[in-house]
């Protein structure tokens, strides 16, 4: 199944209705309702896909206790057939079950998909939705421990188109300024040091990308250069490395594409929503990004993206 589309992205939140209301009211997106067994599942259409809001602990989420972005569902007319054909399902995933509104759903092995909970499901057939604030999903951030393997699984096996790859590095220069009564003012700059580095691989899924973020930081601290002791891992660990240590590899955040990020952030702030960034700052793919505080979205980490298509 070349170039598969995403039927929906499942979010595990404490209050599904409140979280969906944020996306409906703050972004002006279309809302629909679905059900899983007897549980109401709010849906928010965004671009060609949708966000599905599950209460944390819902049976639809399986055994996973992960909150935030929980799983992705690839649209398929024959979920079990596609799951079997991928070679990424196994006895542990069982046979196809009833998903949203009784649609057939088949799971892949999480370990076989780089920690990403992937399911095949029959299409939801929701209307395409956008708003003056957000156009569509730009990408889904994924904490990855092996981007080469992710590329093999999602591009070679699941036939998602490869988009691009980049290395993001952050360097710091420390210095100090000395003002003294006795001596002339002095300034000392220390050598530039690597703070952290990420390998970022973008793979297209429908009208958005999967963004695999792999920490590739190399410690260059003095410990590593010590002549009489083995190196250790002291030093700054990136947010992605910490996330993987705590939760394992897997879905991490949502990113929405907007035409004017500063205006979008200002609109959210004016409406009383809590933000991490007040203005867009540089991000991957020549973009400007700005994060919304997770408390605003009931625990879903998300940011806005403004960028030109190439």
């Amino acid at each position, binding site marked *: 199944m070349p170039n598969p589309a995403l039927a929906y992205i499942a979010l595990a939140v404490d209050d599904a209705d409140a979280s969906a209301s944020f996306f409906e009211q703050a972004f002006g997106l279309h809302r629909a309702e679905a059900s899983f067994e007897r549980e109401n599942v709010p849906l928010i259409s965004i671009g060609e896909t949708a966000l599905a809001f599950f209460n944390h602990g819902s049976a639809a989420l399986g055994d996973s206790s992960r909150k935030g972005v929980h799983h992705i569902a690839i649209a398929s007319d024959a979920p079990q057939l596609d799951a079997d054909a991928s070679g990424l399902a196994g006895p542990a995933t069982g046979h196809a079950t009833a998903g949203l509104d009784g649609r057939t759903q088949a799971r892949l092995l999480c370990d076989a998909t780089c920690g990403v909970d992937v399911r095949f499901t029959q299409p939801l057939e929701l209307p395409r939705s956008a708003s003056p604030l957000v156009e569509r999903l730009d990408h889904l951030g994924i904490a990855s421990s092996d981007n080469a393997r992710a590329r093999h699984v999602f591009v070679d096996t699941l036939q998602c188109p490869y*988009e*691009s*790859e*980049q*290395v*993001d*590095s*952050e*360097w*710091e*220069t*420390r*210095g*100090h*300024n*000395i*003002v*003294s*009564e*006795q*001596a*002339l003012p*002095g*300034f*000392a*700059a*220390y*050598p*530039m040091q690597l*703070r952290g580095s990420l390998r970022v691989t973008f793979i297209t899924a429908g009208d958005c990308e999967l963004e695999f973020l792999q920490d590739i930081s190399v410690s260059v601290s*003095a*410990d590593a*250069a*010590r*002549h*009489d*002791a083995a190196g250790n891992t002291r030093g700054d660990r990136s947010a992605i490395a910490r996330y993987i240590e705590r939760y394992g590899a897997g879905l991490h955040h949502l990113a929405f594409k907007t035409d004017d990020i500063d205006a979008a952030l200002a609109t959210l702030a004016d409406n009383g929503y809590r933000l991490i960034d007040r203005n867009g700052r*540089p*991000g*991957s*793919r*020549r973009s400007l990004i700005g994060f919304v505080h997770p408390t605003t979205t009931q625990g879903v980490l998300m940011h806005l993206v403004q960028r030109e298509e*190439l």
Partner: protein
Amino acid sequence: MALGHIEEIGIRTLDVPTTCRFLHEALGLARLDDDAGRPTAGRFDAGSAELVVHAASASDPGAPPGVGMVRFAAGSSDMTGAGLPAPFGVAPTHGDSADGSPRNPAQGAGQTPTATGDGIISLDYVSVECDVPEAIAAQLESQCHCAAGTTERVTDILQVTEAFVSDKYGAVYHTRTPQMSGGVRVQFVTSDSAAVALTNRFTVHPKAGATTQPTRAPDAPHRSAAVAHIALAIDDVDRIWAEFRRSGWPVLAGGPVTGLRGRRVLMMDPVTFGGELQIHLTAETL
């Protein structure tokens, strides 16, 4: 009662063998016999003062508890009665003579530092972290006849550069606005040959740019509560830096930088001493 000089500095370290090796082999400080019979791990001649190495985990009844790192030779054998502020933790000098003169007369107040090893090394100053440097300085001036030295303000500046290198979108570099992250206020206090740098760390709110309440250094609990670092004066910082590069002793900042009082300073990486102790080697002159 007048403050004489700093006679002895007790340093606690998590890596005693490496610390002793550094003091003896790298700096060339002569080992001294422990004539007081106290269970120290090493005693070294640092010119005008002695450095006494203690194991941080050892139960040492001779070592002052916690903050008591600096011992002054003075006209009194019991400085605790002088009402000095708590951060000093001043303890009576072991082995002082009855008239309060230093235990080692050859290294008494005002004496020329001892020639040690290949270079002349002496105690330059001891940096003591405290809450209100000016108040302690005033107390030392009035009660111990010390003289207030220079006041300095060291501000830490952080600049971050990001690089995005993509196979489709090309390379983009971006430098964020430099930020003042904090720093230290320093008030030097001197007596005949003793110098103490009273320091107070402050932080700067990253957005407002306003100085916040004074705070202790984040790593202060991991080292002595009051002594921020020890500065040893050395005649040629660049020469010893070259020797350290050859022998592999790690330093901070990649080499000598401008430090307090405008002098070049080589900051030893605390990993050398088990991640606890900070020793600075300062040039003797500007």
